[in-house]
């Protein structure tokens, strides 16, 4: 691991703050869900924060992303509004989709976010298509598709990789390998390797520690540079772990306790915090105070969202057609 945090001390703290914000947000969603306040299913990003935050740190504001069903972290890392995000997760009228989308369908034109997605692999063609736009109009921006290890067994992902490689599209494929597709371990359903799936198209692959935000940032920076220079797509496979189950209410009886404990020790926020403290950039106490402040801010946002009205019944048919 490089001392990237040392060379850019503000960056390290900014990444820490973003990851802590996502964690606080997700843990608030978890408690609201346990209390029966969250309609439907919601999938939490706790544990994977380093991926969304590390990649986003390498992007410009006009770059486009497409996310997946575990996507709150990407929305926040790209600068989405936590209040509108929480309102949508709660199905309120002030949410991103006025309560029509929910957790799995958060689309935000302001942050160029083509959406979290309820179809596994669904964001991959959207991001690849955005990259086709960028190439067609000779734009400077690029596109990023975030997806899980489960999406690596969807055929459309390979169709997209083929075209992206063939046409050198400015797209970054970020596979978040949290080792489980829903409730099933990746090894039980996956032949070959994740990296090999892109390698057959001649797409360069970086396999990295997805719990290390600075490693993600460095790999994303290289891939983004390649894309901007017209050299085509890159796949980054991030080895990571979801701290919760498939969805907020999943008890995870299928996971091995010892393994889960080992991954918990790699908590990306704690890891970065220790490094920042070791490098003398901050103190453990200051980080602890910062997290408390963030948690309190998120709690206030959640209360604000809960107080917002449900959509009016008369709005059912709105926004179907132009």
């Amino acid at each position, binding site marked *: 691991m490089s001392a990237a945090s040392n060379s850019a001390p503000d960056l390290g703290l900014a990444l820490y703050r973003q990851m802590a914000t996502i964690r606080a947000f997700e843990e608030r969603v978890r408690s609201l869900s346990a209390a029966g306040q969250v309609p439907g299913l919601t999938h939490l990003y706790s544990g994977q924060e380093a991926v969304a935050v590390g990649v986003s740190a390498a992007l410009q504001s006009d770059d*486009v992303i*497409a996310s997946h069903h575990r996507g709150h972290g990407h929305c926040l890392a790209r600068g989405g509004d936590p209040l509108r995000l929480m309102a949508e997760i709660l199905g309120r009228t002030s949410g*991103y*989709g*006025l309560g*029509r*989308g929910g957790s799995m*369908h958060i*689309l*935000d*034109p302001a942050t160029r976010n*083509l*959406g979290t*997605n*309820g*179809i596994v692999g*669904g964001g*991959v*063609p*959207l*991001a*690849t*298509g*955005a*990259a*086709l*736009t*960028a190439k*067609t*109009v000779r734009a400077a921006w690029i*596109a990023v598709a975030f997806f899980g290890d489960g999406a690596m067994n969807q*055929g*459309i992902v390979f*169709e*997209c990789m*083929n*075209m992206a490689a*063939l046409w050198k599209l400015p797209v970054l494929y970020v596979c978040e390998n949290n080792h489980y597709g829903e409730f099933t371990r990746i090894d039980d359903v996956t032949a070959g390797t994740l990296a090999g799936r892109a390698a057959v198209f001649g797409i360069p692959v970086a396999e990295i520690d997805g719990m290390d935000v600075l490693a993600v940032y460095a790999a994303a920076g290289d891939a983004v540079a390649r894309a901007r220079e017209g050299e085509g797509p890159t796949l980054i496979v991030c080895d990571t772990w979801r701290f919760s189950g498939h969805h907020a209410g999943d008890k995870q009886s299928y996971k091995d306790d010892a393994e889960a404990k080992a991954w918990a020790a790699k908590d990306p926020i704690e890891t970065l915090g220790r490094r920042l403290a070791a490098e003398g950039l901050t103190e453990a106490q200051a980080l602890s105070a910062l997290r408390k402040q963030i948690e309190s801010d998120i709690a206030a946002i959640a209360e604000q969202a809960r107080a917002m009205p449900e959509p009016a019944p008369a709005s059912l048919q*709105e*926004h*179907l*057609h*132009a």
Partner: protein
Amino acid sequence: MPDRQISFKDAVLEALTQEMRADPAVVLIGEDIGAAGGVFLQTKGLFEEFGSGRVIDTPISESAIVGMAIGAAMTGLRPVVEIMFGDFLTLGMDQLVNQAAKVRYMSAGGFTVPLVLRTAIGVGGNLGPQHSQSLHAWVAHVPGLKVVMPSNAADAKGLMTAAIRDDDPVVFFESRSSYNVKGPVPVGEHVVPLGRAAIAREGDAASIVAIGAMVGVALRAADALAADGIGVEVVDVRSLVPLDAATIVESVKKTSRALVLDAGHAQFGVAGEIAATIAEQAFDWLDAPVLRLAAPNVPVPFSRTLEPLAIPSREQVVAKVRELVGRR
């Protein structure tokens, strides 16, 4: 300038050419549409004029073609996607149904999908069960998609122009049997708004409400019936979604009898939907039950003997109308 007689296929091509010249955001995406000019030569000349940057020849990957076109549409392009045969639409259905149809709704208008998906459908040429289907009912069932099916060359040009300019995903069905049928087509800009049916022939004895290539069959049946003094009105639906129920219902209120004619399968199909609409909105004006004539509920067979039986014929339409007016 007076209209010239050009084919349905060339009319669509003319709309594409004019819109691509007018708006650099319009791109064409599909299989074999590059130097080959399309499997039916339906994109002939576009590659030469606009180049590979705007006439994008793809691998045989319908699912990703449709999905990527949606992403492109959400970020500033206005793609016209070509799915060579309507049967292959099934490969792109997830993208159409779960993404394109829902983006505007889920984002409360934040994102739009200005996408046209054109595809050639229908019976003819002994292409067999996987190259002859008319699956328009599949997409017409899904809220968020617009669906059009022109019956003649002028409407083909006008509806394609309107579809490209529309900010929502439009599925544009082209009956292969219509491709070489010529008709008068305006030379310059020609727009036929989505969501408006047309009266293709006036009459007062019964209304035939027909879709796509079935309009031609209805008109030929009307000629035969006219010889017997039965004056049939033919309504060309043109646009399935939005459906111009008002024009259809108005015609039926005038004639009091209705036959709905469709090349899609009868079971759970478009003809049934239109028949139900008529029954709901014009029941008190009806002198006979609303009849349907649609494709039989079997795959389209291959043989020269069997294939023609998989689509309504002029003779069947004539017989149905006689049944309809015989109930007086």
